[in-house]
């Protein structure tokens, strides 16, 4: 309807010099050309290195080989890093979602002042550099008594330095939850805000206790926001560098750090490119996979409602 009105009014008055779709392409061209030149093309070149061979002098050329991938899959050290990355990413997105629910509920349903304060404090870390936030966690989680957490625990009577999480996977999980929490809270709050309040009221009026109304109505209807949040947090954690580098140490080696080591320490570009390919595959896989799941869920619901 809209398009036809626009065209009908447009044609007699202004004789278009270009057909509209062509003008559209023309106006899109600068942005597309920029992205193609500096993102798509460089990424393809980099990822193609993963199947090429690096000579002694460092030149990268034919023959084609899968040896970098082979090493990545069969070397126990490399496989360990892949597993650590996946484990940390899964744990981070799970903990972030648990922490995000009450915050998102407070934003969507809380008293105006509390909702506003929550919103401000959730967004604030998003505009503070990851380096600074992770530095904060270095201070909080420090393994000796000069770490904030250990200092506080000692003050209230736990022995000297009871918490030793720094330079473990758990330190990465804690700091990553903090870094990516806003990206879980915001889609969740948006999802919760779209739920029709009368559904909840009806459930309560018909005698459902609050927890039941939450489990049967609020929770299922917030799944789109939850899935969006889980996808973003999972793929960004799997691709992160700063946090694992600063708080992970050798026991929390993740793909991003391994990639950087291949470039700056081993100068092994094909290996770095293979790691990059795995990271891109994880990110794309998470995004495409969830989209597919959501599509299937919607289709299933449509079938069910037709069957009724």
């Amino acid at each position, binding site marked *: 309807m809209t398009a036809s009105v626009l065209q009908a009014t447009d044609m007699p008055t202004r004789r278009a010099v270009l057909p509209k779709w062509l003008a559209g392409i023309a106006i899109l061209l600068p942005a597309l050309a920029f992205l193609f030149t500096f993102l798509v093309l460089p990424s393809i*070149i980099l990822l193609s290195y993963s199947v090429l061979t690096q000579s002694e002098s460092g030149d990268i050329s034919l023959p084609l080989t899968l040896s970098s991938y082979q090493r990545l899959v069969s070397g126990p050290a490399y496989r360990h890093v892949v597993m650590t990355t996946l484990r940390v990413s899964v744990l981070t997105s799970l903990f972030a979602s648990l922490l995000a629910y009450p915050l998102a509920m407070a934003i969507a349903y809380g008293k105006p002042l509390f909702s506003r*304060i929550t919103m401000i404090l959730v967004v604030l870390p998003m505009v503070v550099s990851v380096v600074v936030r992770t530095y*904060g966690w270095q201070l909080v989680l420090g393994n000796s008594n000069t770490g904030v957490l250990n200092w506080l625990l000692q003050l209230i009577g736990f022995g000297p330095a009871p918490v030793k999480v720094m330079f473990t996977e758990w330190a990465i999980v804690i700091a990553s939850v903090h870094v990516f929490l806003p990206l879980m809270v915001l889609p969740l709050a948006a999802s919760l805000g779209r739920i029709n309040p009368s559904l909840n009221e009806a459930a309560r009026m018909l005698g459902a206790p609050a927890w039941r109304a939450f489990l049967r109505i609020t929770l299922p209807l917030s799944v789109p926001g939850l899935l969006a949040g889980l996808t973003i947090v999972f793929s960004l954690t799997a691709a992160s560098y700063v946090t694992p580098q600063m708080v992970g140490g050798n026991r929390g080696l993740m793909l991003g750090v391994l990639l950087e080591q291949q470039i700056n320490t081993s100068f092994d570009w094909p290996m770095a490119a293979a790691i990059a390919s795995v990271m891109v595959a994880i990110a794309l896989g998470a995004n495409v996979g969830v989209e597919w799941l959501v599509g299937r869920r919607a289709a299933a619901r449509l079938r069910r409602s037709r069957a009724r």
Partner: protein
Amino acid sequence: MAARLSGGGGALTYFLAAAGLIFIVSPLVVVVALSFSEASIATYPPVGFTTAWYQRVIVDDEFRQAFLTSVTLALASTVASFVLGLPAAYALNRWEVPGARTIETILLSPFILPILITGLALLQFMALLRMRDALTNLFIGHVLITLPYLVRTVTASLKQVDRSLEEAALTLGASPWRVFWRVTAPQITPGIAAGCLFAFMVSFDDFPISFWLSNAENMPLPIYLQNSMTKVFDPSIATMSSFTIMTGILAVIGLEKLVGLRRAMSV
């Protein structure tokens, strides 16, 4: 929206949310508190109260240079993203462009691709082209990460515009150009300003792009900070970090004033 958290469940939600807020602010508070410590090493507990670190950091040439580099980069990349992103998003949302969905996916692809890899790919590409000017390379890299924010914000703002106003203006004989400037633009300006501010902060805070593309002469603030953390162990690191936290606070106030945080974040 009316408050709908009540009873025991409501109290529990407030309690858990408050605990979550403490988790969110604690690493930031810890940094700011340390920046006033009189001790000569950056450990807890802080000792006494002094503004000496601030006085020292504020005249530190390297810190000022890094801050300036970051602000310049952020400004330039936001402007460039605006110039590239606004027309693109407008064409996608208002004109019948073939393959609009695919084009939108491409425009937003920097969101999905790991930024660390985007930066590395660009580094290698620039080396192949023999482009050795770090500032130019940084600029291009930062446009890559700010552009999708502009495209997304402009799209979101355009979707909120009442289309019937645009159609009415067209029917009454206004040219499409005039319709854009007199009807569409005033309605999308606050949203786009908020988007620009957010894009500015994305560039200002970036680490993974600058990590690959910066050099000793052109070092944005986050890179400079991370470098310093491995060499300097006094509270001046906390002080420099506090400056970036304050910049973040200013940005949040700006977003809240422009369109309100909830609209800026589409919540």
